[in-house]
Protein backbone atom coordinates (compact mmCIF):
# COMPACT_ATOMS: atom_id res chain seq x y z
CA UNK A 1 0.00 0.00 0.00
CA UNK A 2 1.39 3.39 -0.88
CA UNK A 3 0.53 6.55 0.98
CA UNK A 4 -0.91 8.26 -1.98
CA UNK A 5 -4.09 7.02 -3.60
CA UNK A 6 -4.57 8.03 -7.15
CA UNK A 7 -8.17 8.45 -8.01
CA UNK A 8 -8.83 6.85 -11.31
CA UNK A 9 -12.08 6.09 -13.09
CA UNK A 10 -13.54 2.80 -11.97
CA UNK A 11 -12.92 -0.19 -14.21
CA UNK A 12 -16.58 -1.07 -14.34
CA UNK A 13 -18.69 2.02 -13.83
CA UNK A 14 -21.87 1.65 -11.83
CA UNK A 15 -24.88 0.48 -13.72
CA UNK A 16 -26.54 3.53 -15.14
CA UNK A 17 -30.12 3.49 -16.39
CA UNK A 18 -30.73 5.32 -19.60
CA UNK A 19 -34.04 5.65 -21.36
CA UNK A 20 -34.40 3.42 -24.38
CA UNK A 21 -35.87 5.26 -27.32
CA UNK A 22 -38.25 2.94 -29.02
CA UNK A 23 -38.33 5.16 -32.08
CA UNK A 24 -34.97 4.43 -33.53
CA UNK A 25 -33.04 7.10 -35.28
CA UNK A 26 -33.04 5.88 -38.81
CA UNK A 27 -29.46 5.36 -39.87
CA UNK A 28 -30.04 3.41 -42.97
CA UNK A 29 -32.96 1.47 -44.32
CA UNK A 30 -35.90 1.06 -41.84
CA UNK A 31 -37.17 -2.46 -41.25
CA UNK A 32 -39.81 -3.11 -43.89
CA UNK A 33 -41.51 -5.58 -41.53
CA UNK A 34 -41.98 -3.13 -38.64
CA UNK A 35 -45.55 -2.29 -39.57
CA UNK A 36 -46.52 -5.94 -39.87
CA UNK A 37 -45.63 -7.17 -36.39
CA UNK A 38 -48.19 -9.58 -34.97
CA UNK A 39 -48.27 -11.36 -31.63
CA UNK A 40 -46.81 -14.87 -31.61
CA UNK A 41 -49.07 -17.87 -32.14
CA UNK A 42 -50.60 -19.27 -29.00
CA UNK A 43 -51.34 -22.98 -28.64
CA UNK A 44 -54.13 -22.22 -26.15
CA UNK A 45 -55.88 -20.20 -28.80
CA UNK A 46 -55.62 -23.14 -31.21
CA UNK A 47 -56.82 -25.83 -28.80
CA UNK A 48 -59.21 -24.01 -26.48
CA UNK A 49 -62.40 -22.28 -27.50
CA UNK A 50 -63.87 -21.55 -24.06
CA UNK A 51 -61.28 -21.15 -21.36
CA UNK A 52 -63.71 -21.19 -18.42
CA UNK A 53 -65.35 -24.50 -19.31
CA UNK A 54 -62.21 -26.32 -20.50
CA UNK A 55 -60.58 -28.97 -18.30
CA UNK A 56 -57.49 -31.12 -18.77
CA UNK A 57 -57.76 -34.86 -18.28
CA UNK A 58 -55.07 -37.54 -18.48
CA UNK A 59 -55.90 -40.61 -20.63
CA UNK A 60 -54.94 -44.00 -19.21
CA UNK A 61 -55.38 -47.34 -21.10
CA UNK A 62 -55.31 -48.52 -24.68
CA UNK A 63 -58.85 -48.83 -26.06
CA UNK A 64 -58.51 -45.83 -28.41
CA UNK A 65 -55.41 -46.80 -30.44
CA UNK A 66 -57.19 -46.46 -33.78
CA UNK A 67 -57.50 -42.68 -33.49
CA UNK A 68 -53.92 -42.35 -32.25
CA UNK A 69 -54.86 -41.72 -28.62
CA UNK A 70 -52.40 -43.37 -26.26
CA UNK A 71 -51.98 -43.89 -22.57
CA UNK A 72 -50.57 -40.78 -20.91
CA UNK A 73 -51.91 -38.35 -23.53
CA UNK A 74 -53.44 -35.09 -22.42
CA UNK A 75 -57.10 -34.61 -23.29
CA UNK A 76 -58.56 -31.15 -23.72
CA UNK A 77 -62.17 -31.38 -22.64
CA UNK A 78 -64.83 -28.74 -23.14
CA UNK A 79 -67.60 -29.36 -20.65
CA UNK A 80 -69.97 -26.82 -22.19
CA UNK A 81 -69.87 -28.38 -25.68
CA UNK A 82 -73.11 -30.13 -26.70
CA UNK A 83 -72.20 -33.82 -27.26
CA UNK A 84 -73.03 -35.00 -30.79
CA UNK A 85 -73.04 -38.33 -32.56
CA UNK A 86 -69.47 -39.34 -33.32
CA UNK A 87 -67.84 -37.04 -30.75
CA UNK A 88 -65.04 -38.35 -28.55
CA UNK A 89 -66.40 -37.82 -25.05
CA UNK A 90 -65.56 -38.34 -21.39
CA UNK A 91 -68.41 -40.45 -20.05
CA UNK A 92 -69.12 -41.53 -16.51
CA UNK A 93 -69.37 -45.32 -16.29
CA UNK A 94 -69.59 -47.15 -12.95
CA UNK A 95 -68.35 -44.09 -11.10
CA UNK A 96 -65.30 -43.62 -13.33
CA UNK A 97 -64.38 -41.40 -16.23
CA UNK A 98 -63.89 -43.21 -19.52
CA UNK A 99 -63.00 -41.94 -23.00
CA UNK A 100 -65.12 -43.29 -25.84
CA UNK A 101 -66.74 -42.34 -29.10
CA UNK A 102 -70.35 -41.32 -28.49
CA UNK A 103 -73.08 -42.95 -30.57
CA UNK A 104 -76.54 -41.43 -30.46
CA UNK A 105 -78.18 -43.51 -33.22
CA UNK A 106 -79.72 -46.05 -33.34
CA UNK A 107 -79.42 -45.85 -29.57
CA UNK A 108 -76.97 -44.20 -27.18
CA UNK A 109 -73.73 -46.13 -26.95
CA UNK A 110 -70.03 -45.74 -26.20
CA UNK A 111 -67.71 -47.18 -28.80
CA UNK A 112 -64.03 -47.89 -28.17
CA UNK A 113 -61.68 -47.16 -31.07
CA UNK A 114 -60.01 -50.54 -30.79
CA UNK A 115 -61.64 -53.71 -32.19
CA UNK A 116 -60.40 -55.71 -29.20
CA UNK A 117 -62.93 -53.96 -26.96
CA UNK A 118 -66.74 -54.20 -27.12
CA UNK A 119 -69.12 -51.27 -27.57
CA UNK A 120 -70.94 -50.36 -24.36
CA UNK A 121 -74.70 -49.82 -24.30
CA UNK A 122 -75.39 -48.12 -20.98
CA UNK A 123 -78.89 -47.33 -19.71
CA UNK A 124 -79.69 -44.02 -21.50
CA UNK A 125 -81.03 -42.54 -18.25
CA UNK A 126 -77.79 -43.38 -16.48
CA UNK A 127 -75.49 -42.13 -19.24
CA UNK A 128 -73.70 -39.01 -18.01
CA UNK A 129 -71.27 -37.14 -20.22
CA UNK A 130 -68.62 -35.08 -18.40
CA UNK A 131 -67.54 -33.24 -21.53
CA UNK A 132 -66.48 -33.43 -25.16
CA UNK A 133 -62.82 -34.05 -26.02
CA UNK A 134 -61.99 -31.29 -28.48
CA UNK A 135 -58.28 -32.08 -28.88
CA UNK A 136 -55.57 -34.23 -27.39
CA UNK A 137 -51.84 -33.77 -27.02
CA UNK A 138 -49.44 -36.67 -27.51
CA UNK A 139 -45.90 -35.88 -26.49
CA UNK A 140 -43.25 -37.63 -28.53
CA UNK A 141 -40.40 -36.67 -26.24
CA UNK A 142 -39.97 -35.75 -22.60
CA UNK A 143 -43.11 -37.44 -21.34
CA UNK A 144 -44.64 -36.61 -18.01
Amino acid at each position, binding site marked *: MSDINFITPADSPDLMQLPLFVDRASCGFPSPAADYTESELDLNEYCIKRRS*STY*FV*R*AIGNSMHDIGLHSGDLLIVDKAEQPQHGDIVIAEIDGEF*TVKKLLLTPRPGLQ*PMNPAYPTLWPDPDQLQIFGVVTAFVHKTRGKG
Partner: protein
Amino acid sequence: MFALADVNSFYASCEKVFRPDLRDKPVIVLSNNDGCIIARSKEAKRLGIKMGVPWFQLKEMQFPEPLITFSSNYELYASMSHRFVSHLEEMATRVEQYSIDECFVSLQGLGKYISYEDYGRQLREHVYRGTGLTIGVGMGPSKTLAKSAQWASKEWHQFGGVLALTECNPRRTEKLLSLQPVEEVWGVGRRIGKRLNTYGITNALQLAKMNPAFIRRNFNVVLERTVRELNGEACISLEEAPPAKQQIVCSRSFGKRIIAYDELRQAICQYAERAAEKLRGEKQFCRQIAVFVKTSPFSSEPYYGNVASEKVQIPTRDTRDIIAAAISALDRIWIDGYRYAKAGVMLNDFTPTGVSQLTLFDENPPRERSEQLMKVLDGINHSGLGKVWFAGRGIAPDWQMKREMLSPAYTTKWSDIPRASI
Protein backbone atom coordinates in the same frame (compact mmCIF):
# COMPACT_ATOMS: atom_id res chain seq x y z
CA MET B 1 -83.14 -5.16 -10.94
CA PHE B 2 -80.45 -7.28 -9.34
CA ALA B 3 -79.84 -11.01 -9.26
CA LEU B 4 -77.93 -12.91 -6.63
CA ALA B 5 -76.42 -16.15 -7.91
CA ASP B 6 -74.92 -18.56 -5.44
CA VAL B 7 -73.54 -22.08 -5.80
CA ASN B 8 -75.36 -24.80 -3.86
CA SER B 9 -73.14 -26.45 -1.21
CA PHE B 10 -70.15 -24.92 -2.99
CA TYR B 11 -67.18 -26.73 -1.39
CA ALA B 12 -68.92 -30.10 -1.35
CA SER B 13 -70.08 -29.62 -4.96
CA CYS B 14 -66.53 -28.81 -6.12
CA GLU B 15 -65.35 -32.08 -4.59
CA LYS B 16 -68.00 -33.96 -6.59
CA VAL B 17 -67.34 -32.47 -10.04
CA PHE B 18 -64.31 -34.69 -10.70
CA ARG B 19 -65.53 -37.72 -8.75
CA PRO B 20 -68.40 -39.40 -10.61
CA ASP B 21 -68.33 -42.16 -7.99
CA LEU B 22 -69.54 -39.66 -5.38
CA ARG B 23 -72.56 -38.41 -7.32
CA ASP B 24 -75.27 -39.45 -4.84
CA LYS B 25 -73.02 -39.86 -1.82
CA PRO B 26 -73.05 -37.71 1.32
CA VAL B 27 -69.97 -35.46 1.15
CA ILE B 28 -68.74 -33.10 3.86
CA VAL B 29 -65.83 -30.64 3.91
CA LEU B 30 -63.88 -29.72 7.05
CA SER B 31 -62.45 -26.35 8.07
CA ASN B 32 -58.75 -25.55 8.56
CA ASN B 33 -56.88 -28.18 10.56
CA ASP B 34 -59.79 -30.56 9.90
CA GLY B 35 -61.67 -28.84 12.74
CA CYS B 36 -65.38 -28.74 12.02
CA ILE B 37 -67.87 -29.11 9.22
CA ILE B 38 -68.10 -26.14 6.87
CA ALA B 39 -69.91 -27.66 3.87
CA ARG B 40 -72.37 -30.47 3.28
CA SER B 41 -73.76 -31.97 0.10
CA LYS B 42 -77.53 -32.32 -0.03
CA GLU B 43 -77.23 -36.02 0.81
CA ALA B 44 -75.25 -35.12 3.94
CA LYS B 45 -77.87 -32.52 4.92
CA ARG B 46 -80.51 -35.21 4.56
CA LEU B 47 -78.62 -37.35 7.08
CA GLY B 48 -79.19 -34.52 9.56
CA ILE B 49 -75.56 -33.40 9.72
CA LYS B 50 -75.32 -29.81 10.97
CA MET B 51 -72.87 -27.05 10.07
CA GLY B 52 -70.10 -26.32 12.56
CA VAL B 53 -70.11 -29.72 14.25
CA PRO B 54 -66.55 -30.69 15.27
CA TRP B 55 -65.14 -33.52 13.18
CA PHE B 56 -63.98 -35.56 16.18
CA GLN B 57 -67.60 -35.78 17.40
CA LEU B 58 -68.99 -36.78 14.03
CA LYS B 59 -66.28 -39.38 13.49
CA GLU B 60 -67.71 -41.42 16.34
CA MET B 61 -71.26 -41.40 15.02
CA GLN B 62 -72.87 -44.13 12.92
CA PHE B 63 -74.66 -43.30 9.66
CA PRO B 64 -76.65 -45.57 7.33
CA GLU B 65 -74.04 -44.91 4.62
CA PRO B 66 -70.41 -43.90 4.98
CA LEU B 67 -69.68 -40.16 4.97
CA ILE B 68 -67.13 -39.00 2.42
CA THR B 69 -64.96 -36.43 4.15
CA PHE B 70 -62.53 -33.90 2.68
CA SER B 71 -60.14 -31.32 4.09
CA SER B 72 -60.59 -27.84 2.59
CA ASN B 73 -58.94 -27.76 -0.83
CA TYR B 74 -58.72 -23.99 -1.32
CA GLU B 75 -56.74 -24.31 -4.55
CA LEU B 76 -59.62 -26.23 -6.12
CA TYR B 77 -62.34 -23.96 -4.69
CA ALA B 78 -60.60 -20.79 -5.87
CA SER B 79 -60.25 -22.21 -9.36
CA MET B 80 -63.89 -23.33 -9.54
CA SER B 81 -65.05 -20.00 -8.08
CA HIS B 82 -63.19 -18.21 -10.83
CA ARG B 83 -64.87 -20.39 -13.45
CA PHE B 84 -68.30 -19.74 -11.90
CA VAL B 85 -67.76 -15.95 -12.09
CA SER B 86 -66.47 -16.20 -15.68
CA HIS B 87 -69.64 -18.03 -16.70
CA LEU B 88 -71.82 -15.31 -15.20
CA GLU B 89 -69.75 -12.66 -16.94
CA GLU B 90 -70.35 -14.39 -20.25
CA MET B 91 -74.09 -13.81 -19.81
CA ALA B 92 -74.24 -10.49 -17.96
CA THR B 93 -72.86 -7.03 -18.47
CA ARG B 94 -72.03 -6.30 -14.84
CA VAL B 95 -71.09 -8.78 -12.14
CA GLU B 96 -69.93 -8.15 -8.59
CA GLN B 97 -68.29 -11.06 -6.80
CA TYR B 98 -69.62 -10.92 -3.26
CA SER B 99 -67.98 -14.02 -1.80
CA ILE B 100 -66.25 -17.16 -3.03
CA ASP B 101 -69.61 -18.66 -4.10
CA GLU B 102 -71.94 -15.65 -4.48
CA CYS B 103 -72.23 -12.94 -7.12
CA PHE B 104 -74.55 -10.03 -7.67
CA VAL B 105 -75.53 -9.53 -11.31
CA SER B 106 -77.06 -6.37 -12.74
CA LEU B 107 -80.25 -7.03 -14.70
CA GLN B 108 -80.64 -3.44 -15.84
CA GLY B 109 -82.66 -3.09 -19.02
CA LEU B 110 -83.18 -6.83 -19.34
CA GLY B 111 -86.87 -7.02 -18.40
CA LYS B 112 -88.02 -5.67 -21.75
CA TYR B 113 -86.59 -8.61 -23.64
CA ILE B 114 -86.91 -11.67 -21.47
CA SER B 115 -88.78 -12.66 -18.33
CA TYR B 116 -86.50 -12.52 -15.30
CA GLU B 117 -87.21 -16.11 -14.39
CA ASP B 118 -86.32 -17.34 -17.88
CA TYR B 119 -83.05 -15.44 -17.66
CA GLY B 120 -82.36 -16.94 -14.22
CA ARG B 121 -82.91 -20.43 -15.59
CA GLN B 122 -80.57 -19.68 -18.50
CA LEU B 123 -77.87 -18.53 -16.09
CA ARG B 124 -78.34 -21.69 -14.09
CA GLU B 125 -78.11 -23.91 -17.15
CA HIS B 126 -75.05 -22.05 -18.47
CA VAL B 127 -73.10 -22.38 -15.21
CA TYR B 128 -74.08 -26.03 -14.83
CA ARG B 129 -73.05 -26.92 -18.40
CA GLY B 130 -69.61 -25.38 -18.04
CA THR B 131 -68.73 -26.25 -14.44
CA GLY B 132 -71.02 -29.00 -13.18
CA LEU B 133 -72.03 -26.68 -10.32
CA THR B 134 -75.69 -25.94 -9.59
CA ILE B 135 -76.59 -22.37 -8.70
CA GLY B 136 -79.64 -20.73 -7.14
CA VAL B 137 -80.77 -17.37 -8.51
CA GLY B 138 -82.80 -14.82 -6.56
CA MET B 139 -83.89 -11.58 -8.19
CA GLY B 140 -85.34 -8.35 -6.90
CA PRO B 141 -85.40 -4.57 -7.39
CA SER B 142 -82.75 -4.15 -4.65
CA LYS B 143 -79.79 -6.25 -3.54
CA THR B 144 -81.51 -7.00 -0.22
CA LEU B 145 -84.63 -8.27 -1.99
CA ALA B 146 -82.51 -10.33 -4.41
CA LYS B 147 -80.90 -11.91 -1.37
CA SER B 148 -84.32 -12.60 0.20
CA ALA B 149 -85.48 -14.19 -3.05
CA GLN B 150 -82.39 -16.39 -3.09
CA TRP B 151 -83.09 -17.40 0.52
CA ALA B 152 -86.65 -18.37 -0.48
CA SER B 153 -85.51 -20.30 -3.55
CA LYS B 154 -83.50 -22.52 -1.20
CA GLU B 155 -86.31 -22.88 1.31
CA TRP B 156 -89.02 -23.90 -1.19
CA HIS B 157 -87.95 -26.37 -3.82
CA GLN B 158 -90.96 -25.76 -6.08
CA PHE B 159 -89.24 -22.65 -7.45
CA GLY B 160 -86.56 -24.86 -9.02
CA GLY B 161 -83.81 -22.65 -7.62
CA VAL B 162 -84.93 -19.52 -9.50
CA LEU B 163 -87.18 -16.84 -8.03
CA ALA B 164 -87.85 -13.23 -9.04
CA LEU B 165 -89.55 -10.65 -6.85
CA THR B 166 -90.82 -7.94 -9.17
CA GLU B 167 -92.75 -4.73 -8.64
CA CYS B 168 -95.67 -6.06 -10.68
CA ASN B 169 -96.27 -8.85 -8.16
CA PRO B 170 -96.16 -7.08 -4.76
CA ARG B 171 -98.29 -9.72 -3.07
CA ARG B 172 -95.71 -12.39 -3.71
CA THR B 173 -93.00 -10.18 -2.21
CA GLU B 174 -95.14 -9.51 0.88
CA LYS B 175 -95.96 -13.18 1.31
CA LEU B 176 -92.33 -14.16 1.11
CA LEU B 177 -91.09 -11.44 3.45
CA SER B 178 -93.72 -12.41 6.02
CA LEU B 179 -92.18 -15.89 6.06
CA GLN B 180 -88.55 -14.79 6.30
CA PRO B 181 -87.22 -14.53 9.86
CA VAL B 182 -85.81 -11.04 10.38
CA GLU B 183 -82.30 -12.26 11.26
CA GLU B 184 -82.11 -13.94 7.83
CA VAL B 185 -82.44 -10.57 6.06
CA TRP B 186 -79.22 -9.44 4.37
CA GLY B 187 -77.32 -7.12 6.70
CA VAL B 188 -79.37 -7.87 9.84
CA GLY B 189 -77.78 -10.87 11.51
CA ARG B 190 -78.41 -12.45 14.87
CA ARG B 191 -77.46 -9.60 17.21
CA ILE B 192 -79.56 -6.87 15.59
CA GLY B 193 -82.23 -9.52 14.97
CA LYS B 194 -82.53 -10.08 18.72
CA ARG B 195 -82.87 -6.36 19.38
CA LEU B 196 -85.53 -6.10 16.68
CA ASN B 197 -87.37 -8.98 18.37
CA THR B 198 -87.72 -6.86 21.51
CA TYR B 199 -89.61 -4.31 19.40
CA GLY B 200 -91.88 -7.13 18.24
CA ILE B 201 -90.27 -7.37 14.82
CA THR B 202 -89.74 -11.04 14.00
CA ASN B 203 -90.10 -11.24 10.21
CA ALA B 204 -88.83 -9.31 7.21
CA LEU B 205 -92.24 -7.87 6.34
CA GLN B 206 -92.59 -6.25 9.76
CA LEU B 207 -89.16 -4.70 9.31
CA ALA B 208 -90.12 -3.43 5.84
CA LYS B 209 -93.19 -1.71 7.31
CA MET B 210 -91.18 0.19 9.93
CA ASN B 211 -90.70 3.93 9.65
CA PRO B 212 -87.15 4.48 8.28
CA ALA B 213 -86.66 7.53 10.49
CA PHE B 214 -87.54 5.49 13.59
CA ILE B 215 -85.06 2.80 12.61
CA ARG B 216 -82.33 5.37 12.02
CA ARG B 217 -82.95 6.93 15.42
CA ASN B 218 -83.06 3.66 17.36
CA PHE B 219 -80.60 1.59 15.33
CA ASN B 220 -78.39 3.07 12.64
CA VAL B 221 -78.33 4.35 9.11
CA VAL B 222 -77.28 0.95 7.77
CA LEU B 223 -80.47 -0.69 9.01
CA GLU B 224 -82.49 2.24 7.68
CA ARG B 225 -81.03 1.46 4.27
CA THR B 226 -82.09 -2.17 4.71
CA VAL B 227 -85.68 -1.03 5.38
CA ARG B 228 -85.67 1.07 2.22
CA GLU B 229 -84.17 -1.81 0.24
CA LEU B 230 -86.87 -4.20 1.48
CA ASN B 231 -89.39 -1.73 0.05
CA GLY B 232 -87.82 -2.05 -3.37
CA GLU B 233 -85.70 1.09 -3.26
CA ALA B 234 -82.18 0.23 -4.49
CA CYS B 235 -79.78 1.99 -2.09
CA ILE B 236 -76.75 -0.27 -2.47
CA SER B 237 -75.23 -0.28 -5.93
CA LEU B 238 -73.13 -2.90 -7.64
CA GLU B 239 -69.47 -2.71 -6.71
CA GLU B 240 -67.53 -4.05 -9.62
CA ALA B 241 -64.13 -3.03 -8.34
CA PRO B 242 -63.83 -3.89 -4.66
CA PRO B 243 -62.70 -0.87 -2.61
CA ALA B 244 -59.01 -0.75 -1.73
CA LYS B 245 -58.33 -2.77 1.41
CA GLN B 246 -57.61 -0.90 4.63
CA GLN B 247 -56.09 -3.86 6.41
CA ILE B 248 -54.53 -7.21 5.58
CA VAL B 249 -54.66 -10.04 8.07
CA CYS B 250 -52.85 -13.30 7.69
CA SER B 251 -53.49 -15.68 10.55
CA ARG B 252 -54.11 -19.34 11.13
CA SER B 253 -54.57 -21.88 13.86
CA PHE B 254 -51.69 -24.29 14.13
CA GLY B 255 -51.95 -27.98 13.34
CA LYS B 256 -50.61 -28.63 16.84
CA ARG B 257 -49.87 -26.37 19.83
CA ILE B 258 -46.57 -24.49 19.67
CA ILE B 259 -44.38 -24.22 22.75
CA ALA B 260 -40.99 -23.37 21.23
CA TYR B 261 -40.09 -19.80 20.32
CA ASP B 262 -38.32 -20.87 17.14
CA GLU B 263 -41.42 -22.52 15.80
CA LEU B 264 -43.63 -19.52 16.49
CA ARG B 265 -41.05 -17.29 14.88
CA GLN B 266 -41.18 -19.48 11.77
CA ALA B 267 -44.95 -19.17 11.66
CA ILE B 268 -44.83 -15.39 12.05
CA CYS B 269 -42.23 -15.25 9.30
CA GLN B 270 -44.46 -17.20 6.96
CA TYR B 271 -47.55 -15.08 7.71
CA ALA B 272 -45.52 -11.87 7.30
CA GLU B 273 -44.31 -13.13 3.95
CA ARG B 274 -47.82 -13.96 2.81
CA ALA B 275 -49.19 -10.63 4.09
CA ALA B 276 -46.45 -8.70 2.25
CA GLU B 277 -47.29 -10.56 -0.94
CA LYS B 278 -50.98 -9.67 -0.54
CA LEU B 279 -50.03 -6.05 0.13
CA ARG B 280 -48.15 -5.91 -3.15
CA GLY B 281 -51.13 -7.53 -4.86
CA GLU B 282 -53.24 -4.63 -3.58
CA LYS B 283 -50.62 -2.17 -4.86
CA GLN B 284 -50.33 -0.58 -1.42
CA PHE B 285 -47.62 0.27 1.10
CA CYS B 286 -48.09 -0.03 4.86
CA ARG B 287 -46.79 1.89 7.82
CA GLN B 288 -47.86 -0.35 10.66
CA ILE B 289 -47.21 -4.06 11.27
CA ALA B 290 -48.95 -5.83 14.13
CA VAL B 291 -48.52 -9.35 15.47
CA PHE B 292 -50.85 -11.29 17.74
CA VAL B 293 -50.44 -14.60 19.53
CA LYS B 294 -52.88 -16.55 21.65
CA THR B 295 -53.42 -19.84 23.39
CA SER B 296 -56.62 -21.81 23.01
CA PRO B 297 -59.50 -20.14 24.87
CA PHE B 298 -61.31 -23.48 25.04
CA SER B 299 -58.83 -25.60 26.90
CA SER B 300 -58.36 -25.71 30.67
CA GLU B 301 -54.83 -24.27 30.59
CA PRO B 302 -54.26 -20.63 31.54
CA TYR B 303 -55.13 -18.25 28.72
CA TYR B 304 -52.67 -15.80 27.25
CA GLY B 305 -53.25 -13.55 24.28
CA ASN B 306 -51.43 -10.39 23.29
CA VAL B 307 -50.79 -8.08 20.39
CA ALA B 308 -47.94 -5.70 19.60
CA SER B 309 -47.33 -3.42 16.69
CA GLU B 310 -44.39 -1.71 15.06
CA LYS B 311 -44.40 1.46 13.02
CA VAL B 312 -42.06 1.98 10.11
CA GLN B 313 -40.85 5.46 9.18
CA ILE B 314 -41.14 4.97 5.48
CA PRO B 315 -44.17 3.15 4.03
CA THR B 316 -43.00 -0.25 2.84
CA ARG B 317 -44.05 -3.35 0.97
CA ASP B 318 -40.71 -5.08 1.11
CA THR B 319 -41.01 -8.54 2.65
CA ARG B 320 -37.71 -8.05 4.49
CA ASP B 321 -38.95 -4.92 6.28
CA ILE B 322 -42.24 -6.56 7.17
CA ILE B 323 -40.61 -9.72 8.52
CA ALA B 324 -38.14 -7.65 10.58
CA ALA B 325 -40.92 -5.52 12.08
CA ALA B 326 -43.10 -8.58 12.75
CA ILE B 327 -40.27 -10.39 14.55
CA SER B 328 -39.46 -7.42 16.75
CA ALA B 329 -43.18 -7.14 17.61
CA LEU B 330 -43.26 -10.86 18.40
CA ASP B 331 -40.24 -10.55 20.69
CA ARG B 332 -42.14 -8.02 22.80
CA ILE B 333 -45.12 -10.28 23.45
CA TRP B 334 -43.55 -13.75 23.53
CA ILE B 335 -43.73 -15.41 26.93
CA ASP B 336 -42.21 -18.81 27.59
CA GLY B 337 -44.31 -21.63 28.92
CA TYR B 338 -47.61 -21.20 27.08
CA ARG B 339 -49.02 -23.59 24.51
CA TYR B 340 -49.83 -21.26 21.61
CA ALA B 341 -52.75 -22.21 19.35
CA LYS B 342 -52.95 -19.30 16.94
CA ALA B 343 -50.93 -16.36 15.69
CA GLY B 344 -51.21 -13.80 12.96
CA VAL B 345 -49.76 -10.77 11.26
CA MET B 346 -51.79 -7.65 10.46
CA LEU B 347 -50.77 -4.81 8.18
CA ASN B 348 -52.40 -1.42 8.71
CA ASP B 349 -52.17 2.23 7.73
CA PHE B 350 -51.90 1.93 3.98
CA THR B 351 -50.83 4.45 1.39
CA PRO B 352 -50.87 3.88 -2.34
CA THR B 353 -47.29 5.10 -2.78
CA GLY B 354 -44.05 4.55 -0.95
CA VAL B 355 -43.32 8.27 -1.04
CA SER B 356 -42.60 10.01 2.24
CA GLN B 357 -40.32 12.64 3.63
CA LEU B 358 -36.94 11.20 4.62
CA THR B 359 -35.71 12.19 8.04
CA LEU B 360 -32.23 13.01 9.08
CA PHE B 361 -32.00 10.35 11.77
CA ASP B 362 -33.79 7.57 10.00
CA GLU B 363 -32.71 4.15 11.18
CA ASN B 364 -34.00 2.24 8.18
CA PRO B 365 -33.08 3.98 4.96
CA PRO B 366 -35.11 2.71 2.01
CA ARG B 367 -33.65 -0.42 0.50
CA GLU B 368 -32.09 -0.22 -2.87
CA ARG B 369 -34.01 -1.85 -5.73
CA SER B 370 -36.55 -3.27 -3.34
CA GLU B 371 -39.27 -3.00 -5.97
CA GLN B 372 -37.33 -5.09 -8.50
CA LEU B 373 -36.41 -7.78 -5.98
CA MET B 374 -40.01 -8.17 -4.82
CA LYS B 375 -41.14 -8.35 -8.41
CA VAL B 376 -38.75 -11.21 -9.09
CA LEU B 377 -39.89 -12.95 -5.89
CA ASP B 378 -43.58 -12.70 -6.74
CA GLY B 379 -42.86 -13.60 -10.35
CA ILE B 380 -41.25 -16.89 -9.33
CA ASN B 381 -43.90 -17.70 -6.74
CA HIS B 382 -46.79 -17.04 -9.11
CA SER B 383 -45.27 -18.92 -12.03
CA GLY B 384 -46.36 -22.29 -10.67
CA LEU B 385 -42.88 -23.65 -11.41
CA GLY B 386 -41.47 -23.40 -7.94
CA LYS B 387 -41.35 -21.35 -4.78
CA VAL B 388 -38.73 -19.25 -3.08
CA TRP B 389 -39.08 -18.09 0.49
CA PHE B 390 -37.17 -16.51 3.33
CA ALA B 391 -35.16 -18.90 5.45
CA GLY B 392 -36.75 -17.61 8.64
CA ARG B 393 -39.83 -19.61 7.86
CA GLY B 394 -38.07 -22.96 8.07
CA ILE B 395 -38.08 -25.83 5.62
CA ALA B 396 -40.73 -28.31 6.64
CA PRO B 397 -42.44 -26.94 9.73
CA ASP B 398 -44.62 -29.46 11.52
CA TRP B 399 -47.02 -26.85 12.93
CA GLN B 400 -48.33 -26.42 9.38
CA MET B 401 -52.06 -26.66 8.76
CA LYS B 402 -53.37 -30.18 8.99
CA ARG B 403 -55.16 -31.33 5.83
CA GLU B 404 -55.23 -35.08 6.04
CA MET B 405 -58.10 -35.72 3.67
CA LEU B 406 -57.12 -33.35 0.90
CA SER B 407 -58.38 -34.03 -2.61
CA PRO B 408 -56.17 -33.42 -5.69
CA ALA B 409 -55.84 -29.92 -7.17
CA TYR B 410 -57.70 -31.11 -10.28
CA THR B 411 -57.50 -27.84 -12.19
CA THR B 412 -54.31 -26.17 -10.97
CA LYS B 413 -51.57 -28.81 -10.90
CA TRP B 414 -50.48 -30.94 -13.85
CA SER B 415 -49.77 -33.95 -11.68
CA ASP B 416 -53.27 -33.79 -10.16
CA ILE B 417 -55.52 -33.54 -13.23
CA PRO B 418 -58.36 -36.08 -13.37
CA ARG B 419 -57.78 -39.38 -15.14
CA ALA B 420 -60.02 -41.15 -17.61
CA SER B 421 -59.57 -44.72 -18.79
CA ILE B 422 -59.51 -45.31 -22.52
